[in-house]
C-alpha cells in the first residue's frame, strides 16, 4: 500500500484528479440547477453524449475547438429545452421523459456520427485542447503544475463553481430557482413565472452538461467514441444527491469521486496484477454507493422535485 500512498502525492496524480473531476463538475452543476428548480433531468447521460458528438464534429469540420465548445453548449441547451418542453410546459413524468431524452440523444449521436464520418477502421480524432499553464501560479511546487497547468475548460469549471453558488444564493433569479423547486405556488403568487424559471434552469443545466460532453471529446479523449461518456451522467445524478443540491458540496463530491477513480487507475497500473482489473474499475462506483448511503441519509431533496406545476389546479 505504501506504493499507492507515494503515488497520491505525485503531481501527475493530483493533475489526474482535477482532470477527471472537470466533466463531472460541469455535469453535476448542470443537474443541480435543474433539480433545484424542481426538474430531475435523467436525459443527462444522452445530452452529454450528443454534445460530445456535436462538439467534436463542429471542431473537426471547422478546425476551431471553441466553435466545437459552442456547438456542444448549444446542443446541451437545446436538449434541455426539449426536456423542459415535456416536463415543464406539458407536465409529463420527469422520469419517463428523461430516459426518453437519453435514448433519443444517444441514438441521434450514433446516427449523425455515422452519417458524417462513415465507418472507418481508425476512428477520426482531432487535435484537442492543450494545457495552458497560468503564469506565476503554475510555478508553485506540486500544486502549481497539478492545478494551474490544465486545459482552459478546467479553469472554466473552477470558475463555474463559485459562480453557480453566487447565482443560486445571491441573485433574484437564483432565489426564484430555489423557490420554484421548493414551493412553486409561493413563487407564482409572488408574481414569478414558474414555467419560465424552470425552463431557464433546465436549459442552463443542459448547457453545463454540454460543456461536460465537450470536455470529454475535445480535451480528455480528443475523439468521439460510443463509450465516451460511459455512465458519467448517471454518476453526476448521484453526486448531486451526495452534494445535497449545493454547488460547493456537489463540486466537492465530484472531486472525491475523481480521487477514487484516479486511485483505481493507479492501482490497475501499479502491479497489483493478480487482482483482475475489473475489480479496480468497480471501486469508484462502490464508493459512490457507500458514500450515498452514509452521507445522504438526511439529505432533503427540493420539495417540489418531480412535481409538475399547473396553475389551474387547486
Amino acid at each position, binding site marked *: 500500500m505504501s506504493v499507492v500512498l507515494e503515488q497520491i502525492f505525485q503531481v501527475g496524480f493530483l493533475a489526474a484528479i482535477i482532470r477527471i473531476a472537470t466533466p463531472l463538475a460541469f455535469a453535476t452543476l448542470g443537474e443541480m440547477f435543474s433539480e433545484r428548480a424542481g426538474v430531475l433531468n435523467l436525459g443527462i447521460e444522452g445530452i452529454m453524449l450528443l454534445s460530445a458528438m456535436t462538439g467534436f464534429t463542429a471542431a473537426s469540420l471547422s478546425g476551431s475547438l471553441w466553435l466545437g465548445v459552442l456547438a456542444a453548449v448549444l446542443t446541451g441547451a437545446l436538449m434541455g429545452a426539449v426536456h423542459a418542453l415535456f416536463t415543464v410546459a406539458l407536465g409529463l413524468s420527469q422520469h419517463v421523459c428523461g430516459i426518453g431524452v437519453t435514448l433519443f440523444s444517444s441514438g441521434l449521436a450514433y446516427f449523425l456520427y455515422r452519417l458524417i464520418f462513415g465507418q472507418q477502421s481508425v476512428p477520426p480524432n482531432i487535435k484537442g485542447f492543450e494545457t495552458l499553464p497560468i503564469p506565476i501560479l503554475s510555478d508553485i511546487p506540486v500544486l502549481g503544475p497539478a492545478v494551474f497547468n490544465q486545459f482552459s475548460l478546467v479553469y472554466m469549471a473552477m470558475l463555474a463553481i463559485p459562480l453557480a453558488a453566487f447565482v443560486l444564493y445571491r441573485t*433574484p433569479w437564483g*432565489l426564484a430557482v430555489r*423557490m420554484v423547486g421548493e*414551493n412553486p405556488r*409561493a413563487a407564482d403568487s409572488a408574481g*414569478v413565472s414558474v414555467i419560465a424559471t424552470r425552463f431557464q434552469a433546465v436549459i442552463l443545466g443542459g448547457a453545463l452538461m454540454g460543456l461536460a460532453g465537450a470536455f470529454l471529446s475535445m480535451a480528455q479523449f480528443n475523439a468521439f467514441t460510443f463509450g465516451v461518456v460511459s455512465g458519467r451522467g448517471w454518476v453526476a445524478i448521484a453526486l448531486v444527491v451526495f452534494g445535497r443540491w449545493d454547488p460547493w458540496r456537489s463540486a466537492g463530491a465530484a472531486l472525491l469521486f475523481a480521487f477514487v477513480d484516479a486511485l483505481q487507475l493507479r492501482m490497475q497500473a501499479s502491479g497489483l496484477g493478480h487482482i483482475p482489473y475489473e475489480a479496480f474499475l468497480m471501486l469508484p462506483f462502490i464508493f459512490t454507493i457507500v458514500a450515498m448511503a452514509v452521507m445522504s441519509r438526511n439529505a432533503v431533496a427540493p*420539495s417540489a422535485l418531480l412535481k409538475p406545476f399547473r396553475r389551474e389546479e387547486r
Partner: protein
Amino acid sequence: MSTPAPLIEMRGISKSFGAVKANEAVDLSVAPGEILGLLGENGAGKTTLMNVLFGAYAPDAGEILVQGRSVAINSSADALAAGIGMVHQHFHLAPRLSVLENLLIGIPGRSGRIDRAGGLARLAEIGRQHGLTLDPDLPVSALSVGEQQRLEIVKALFRGARLLILDEPTAVLAPTEVDGLFSALRSMAAQGLGIIFISHKLNEVRALTHRCVVLRHGRVAGRVDAPASTTSSEMARLMCGHEIVPPARGPSMPGAAVLTLDGISTSHHSGMALRDVSLSVRGGEILGIAGVSGNGQRALAEVISGVRAPDAGKMTIAGKTVSRFSPSTVQALGLGRIPEDRMTTGLVTNLPLADSMVLPRIGTAAFSRNGLIKPDAIRAFAEAQIKAYDIRCPGPMTRAGALSGGNLQKALLARELAFDPKVLIVSQPTRGLDIGAARFIHEKFLDMRAKGCSIIVIGEDLEELLMLSDRIAVMYEGRIVGTLDSADASIARLGLMMTGAEGHA
C-alpha cells in the same frame, strides 16, 4: 361608518365551472380602513370570488375597480401591482428558505444581486408599523403556524398591498393566536388598509368586522351593516337559508365503563408524550378532551386506536385488557376511530371512495374471501352508506380526494358507525366543516350516545365540546390536569385549565 371612495369594488362578478355557478352577479366593495367580513358556508363561492380578485381565475362577467378605475387582473402579479395581497388558507411559503428569502422572491435585486439590506430595512419598518416582527434569517420551517401566517401578512404588506384578503385565517390558529391576529388586523385597518376577512365562524366575524357580505350558492344572500349588533342566529340564517338549531343533548344515562386507561405513559417518540394518563368512558357517555394542540392529544388518540403502544399502563375495552397494541386488535374489541387528518391518515385520496370506506376492515369476511376482495360487496356497502349519510358524490367509484371536507367526514363516520363500535374516538370532528355538515356530525354523535356508545371527542373548539360532552378532561403537557362535568364547565374555566394553571377541579 361613513364611506370614503372604495379601495376596491367588484361589480356583477360571475364565474362558472362547467355547469356549476360558483359566483353570480356578486357586488362587493371595501373602503380604506374597513374590515369587510365575507361569510358563507363551504362551497358558497367565497374562495372563488377572492381568487377572481387575486387574478387566479378570470371572471365570466363583471368588472373590478381599483380606486375607481376599472382594471383587468389576469394574474397574481397584476393583483399585486394593483395593491391587492392575499393570505391563502394553505400558506404559500417555501419551508426550507429563510423568512427574508420568502419575502424577497419576485422582488428585483440591486445591480443583479438580492437586495438584502433593503429587504431588512423594509421588514423592520413593517414590524414597527404593525407590530409584526419576525427573525429574518430563520428558515420558515422553524416558525410556528401563527408566525408563518404573520409572514404571509408581512409578505403582502412588503409588496405594498393596500387591500389584504385573508382566507379563513383562524382555521389554523390556537385561540390565543387568534387574539394576536385580530389586534394586528385592527391596527392595519386603523392605518388605512382595507381588509377582507373570509370566515364561516360567526363569532369571529361579529367581533372583528365593520360590515359583512353573506354569500350563499354563489350569490349575495345578504349584507350586514353592523355585525357586532346582529345576532349569530340571524347571520346563520342568511348563510344557510334556514334556521339552525343546535341539537339538544338528552339527559346523561351512563352505563358501565367501556374504555379505561390506567396509568398510560408513552415515550417522546414524536410530539408530546403521555405521562400517567388515566381515564374512563362509560357507555352512553361523551367524554371531551380539551387542550391546546400539541399537549399529548395525538399520542392519546394513537394509543387508544392502537397505532402506538404505551411504555407503561393498561388499557381495557369492554372489560378486556389490550395485550397487543395494533389498529386491528383494538378494532376487533369494538373501537371505531375517526382520525384527525382526513386526507393523510383518514383515507387514500387517489383510490375510489368505496375502497377507502372499507379499508380498515378489508380483511374481514364481509369484504374478502380466501385472500381475494369482494368488489361487489365493497361497492354495495359504499352505495348503502352514501345513501344513508347523504354523501354528495357522483358515486362509490369517485376518487376520494375529489370530495369536499364535509362529505369526506360523513364517509369516515359512516365507515365506523356501520359496524356499531362500542367506543368511538374522534379528533377535531368538525374542523373546516360548515355549519350544516357540522350539525349533521353532531347529531350522529348524540344518536350513538343514546344507543349506548362511548365517544371520546378530542378538540380545540370549546363551544363544541361543551355542547356535546357529558364530561370534559383537560390535557396539559401530556397529563390530564382535571376532569369537569360539563354542567360545571365554562369556556373561561376550561381555558384556564388548558394553560396548566389549575391542578385539579
